[in-house]
């Protein structure tokens, strides 16, 4: 099992909200009645940004990569692209999506009025698991998430931390996935559960895990490689200590 990324680039279309406004278009039209060139420029407010530029990495089983970079450096975009949510504009991602799982904002898809039990099934299905598998591991999920006695409560009654526990259990307890893309996931939840979670993930073998985080503790404790991004460019890929030094330089520059 491996994950190989070659010359990956992603062009992300950005469109100013003004572009949609009929009123803004009319005002712009009158303002620039005699300045044809400017008018054209104003109306053509659609811009494309190079969100990811020439990313090259190769991961093997048991690799745990920490993605680090300033806000807007392209960490989450890279994660989404690797997970198959965005199609690369150029380059190639060699991955088996049947065994990969994007853990980007899983609680965003929860149906707050529905029960914990039903939400576990729904999230599991959206993540690509079979219903029989989810049902067969339901008790294990609820026990790990410490929600066994609350299965029929609506998700709306859960705190953010408890939702984290529920989603964590769905993503990691269910067997069958080997490549995990985790975005800023360990920021919620109490430290006790975080440690329990780390311990559980560390036991997983023959997996590839890519974690995107601003938290150095998470990367140092959990990863064996680091990928430093800046403005969509791959700055460094390799040893953690060296990568964190480079990241420090970016912060201080």
């Amino acid at each position, binding site marked *: 099992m491996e994950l190989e990324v070659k010359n990956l680039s992603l062009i992300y279309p950005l469109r100013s909200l003004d572009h949609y406004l009929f009123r803004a278009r009319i005002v712009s039209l009158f303002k620039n009645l005699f300045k044809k060139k400017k008018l054209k420029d104003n109306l053509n407010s659609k811009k494309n940004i190079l969100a990811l530029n020439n990313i090259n990495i190769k991961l093997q089983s048991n690799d745990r990569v920490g993605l680090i970079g300033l806000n807007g450096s392209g960490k989450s975009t890279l994660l989404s692209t690797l997970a*198959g949510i*965005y199609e690369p504009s150029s380059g190639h991602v060699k991955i088996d999506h049947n065994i990969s799982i*994007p853990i*980007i904002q899983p609680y965003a898809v929860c149906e707050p*009025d*529905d029960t914990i039990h039903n939400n576990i099934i729904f999230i599991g*299905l959206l993540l*690509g698991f079979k219903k029989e598998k989810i049902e067969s591991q339901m008790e294990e999920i609820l026990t790990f998430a410490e929600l066994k006695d609350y299965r029929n409560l609506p998700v709306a009654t859960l705190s953010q931390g408890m939702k984290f526990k529920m989603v964590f259990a769905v993503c990691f307890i269910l067997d069958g996935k080997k490549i995990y893309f985790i975005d800023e996931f360990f920021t919620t939840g109490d430290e006790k559960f975080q440690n329990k979670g780390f311990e559980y993930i560390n036991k997983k073998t023959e997996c590839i895990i890519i974690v995107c985080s601003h938290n150095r503790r998470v990367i140092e404790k959990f990863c064996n490689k680091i990928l430093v991004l800046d403005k969509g460019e791959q700055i460094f890929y390799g040893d953690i200590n060296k990568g964190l030094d480079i990241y420090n330089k970016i912060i201080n520059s």
Partner: protein
Amino acid sequence: MIKFYKEVLSTIRNFDLWFNIAISKLRVRFIRTALGPIWEIIGTMVFLIFISLIWSRLWGRAFFEYFGFLYTGYAIWKIMATTITESTFLFSELYSNALKNMRCNPISFCLGNSLKNLLILFLNLPIVIIITIYNDTISLNGILLMLIYLFLFFISATCVSFIVSTLCLKFRDLQYSVVVIMQLLFFMTPVIWDPQQISEKGRFFLVDTNIFYHYVEFFRSALLYGGVNKLSIIVVTISTLILMIVTFFLYAKIKNKIIFWVT
């Protein structure tokens, strides 16, 4: 093209997901109510009994005969209109988070949306069948035609749901115009009035060329009269085929762009 065909096929095969999407929305809709989905029947029944009481007298028709005509027409119209209007915000609001954060095919949500509405139609079916038994119009032929219709309707509804959802995602003004158009079409389509009540010229424009009429008529005639006119069968079948082709090509063309329109 083969890649897209395989994607669509594997989405259809993932029945558990879209069945769950449908059931989950249906469950949440009636959550914390004592009567649950029975409210769907009560709401429609009360509304249509009152309408039938007034309009059957206005048009000099027997109450039960008109009530049967209205109930079957309204039941299917409501499902058609709900499917289309809900599709206007399916990708932009209802499932935008799932599209942004999960690797799931947008067609799953269209299948789920259509199935949810079809299940609501099934809630009304017992009443429709009671009416046909009371009016002594029930027949095996009619039930078979209805089953064929429901199959074609489900495909059409899913395709329309995908087309409307993507267009409304890209062109947000359509969200509002579709709702207005559906309200107008309710009065233009023979749902509460009989096509026999208007002139030949009016019939051509409002009935024969109105695709929505043929979808209503197929369902209504199958149940009420045990047979459907050939034109409605042809229109519904051809429309379903055209919608499937359009949906497939639209999917192949814009599938990778949907995520950028959502964010």
